[in-house]
């Protein structure tokens, strides 16, 4: 295991990206940080800049407007970066599948390490998803 990955495992910093979701997954991600679930205990911190991120949490189907920005965000993220898709929309576009402005799920454009389905997934599920990814390292 490389040193970078070893360090990542101890305190993964997460950054969340909304590519056109209804906000619900984003709220549940935030919810995981607040006292009931409090993942900060384990060193998981939500950061404000993509350049600090170890893990990308992406929610929502990819809309036409957001695609260039999603690609740019992925390029800017320091590697190795783990990508976790949160919610049914990000996994397979969900209910918005037929929308004319929806151009596909997230894994069509950037490599994805894990999927957390649900509409929205509960904070417990999101935490379980992140832990599973960390365990594979």
């Amino acid at each position, binding site marked *: 295991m490389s040193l970078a990955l070893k360090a990542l495992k101890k305190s993964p910093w997460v950054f969340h990206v909304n590519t056109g979701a209804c906000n619900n997954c984003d709220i549940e991600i935030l919810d995981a940080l607040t006292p009931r679930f409090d993942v900060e205990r384990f060193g998981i911190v939500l950061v404000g*800049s993509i350049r600090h991120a170890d893990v990308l949490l992406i929610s929502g189907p990819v809309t036409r407007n957001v695609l260039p920005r999603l690609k740019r965000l992925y390029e800017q993220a320091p590697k190795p970066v783990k990508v976790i898709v949160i919610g049914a929309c990000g996994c397979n576009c969900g209910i918005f599948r037929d929308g004319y402005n929806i151009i596909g799920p997230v894994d069509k454009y950037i490599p994805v390490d894990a999927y957390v389905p649900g509409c929205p997934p509960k904070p417990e599920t999101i935490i379980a998803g992140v832990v599973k990814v960390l365990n594979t390292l």
Partner: protein
Amino acid sequence: MVKKIPIGPFHPILEEPEFFELHVDGERVVDIDMTIGWSHRGIELLSEHKTWDQVPFLVERVCGICSCSHPYAYVKAVEDLLQIEVPERAQYIRAIVAELERLHSHLLWTGLAGHFIGYNTVFMWTWKYREPVLDILEAVTGNRNHYAMMRIGGVRREIPVEEIPNIRKMLDDLVEKNKMLTGAIVDDPVIHARTEGVGILDKKMCRLYGALGPTARAGGYNIDARRDHPIDAYGKIDFDVIVCENGDVYDKAVVRQLENFESIKIIRQALDKLEALGPGDICTEIGEVPPGEGIGVYEAPRGEVLHYIRSNGGNMPMRHKIRAPSFNNILTNEYSVVGDTVADAGLITAAVDPCYSCTERVGRIDRNSGERWIMSEGDLIRMSQEKTEEIRKMMTGK
């Protein structure tokens, strides 16, 4: 010398993503440009390809926080077209779920506003107090968000009788916590100094911009769709509409905090009525939808949401138009941000509750020299928090 600061385009915490470009002269904001439409998913067209009963599932995904208000307005629009009355029991269940949603939405906003001005304690408190509300919603509807309760002609499921004492207990606890929270906001001199007189939107401007919901009521514009167009149970329930005068960020916070008490009052009355009614029908059969058009209006946590549907007698809407309150409220930033400082801009744009936070980059461009700074959205929050810290030091002398 005027500089441009682009902020955005998407603020993944709440509501629609939007793109702001601040034109600044030193620290002062002199103008603001706004672009919206980043998470455009084409919901209206999608809805025109779904059957009448499928549409509520789609429209509750317009926004994850107003996930009861949109279906409520939609089913009212269809019921307006059908000219049917909803069973009384269903009316109260609708009011209970809708007001629980308002509680969690307002608490969520107060927490984020606290985070913006550097009061992370407020953020953690409110989100902790919000959890019991979500627990009740989960027990009643089966999901923490996206409740799928609304159905044309009534509601989809009953509130279990054994849950009613739990709801009452949660409300009793929440009253105490909300009182404490309101007290903490009203008594804190630093919060006063930081938010009073910031981002003022007075009554005249509220009318001019068509501001809605708490944004308008904070400025003294007395408008509330629950009272002005009483639908279902709201005509039979006693509640007050909270109106403030100044329209600054402080008033916007106070309006939302006091509205929590009103929501609790409404839920308690609805629970009383529900228990008095006893078991009964919760949904009317609707049959075919005739040609025609209907309008449904409901007061979402952020303001009046309007749905318009037209039918040609088929099994799908022929036209479905949605007008969400944030569309009006975002435009008010054009007036309220100008004249304030960059450190306040984040707070003011957040105060209308298309809440706006920390993942986007902010770039700063000097128009004359072409010089460019790239700031992260985190920097904007940091600036805001530093300003609070300065005020605190000034006031406490430490």
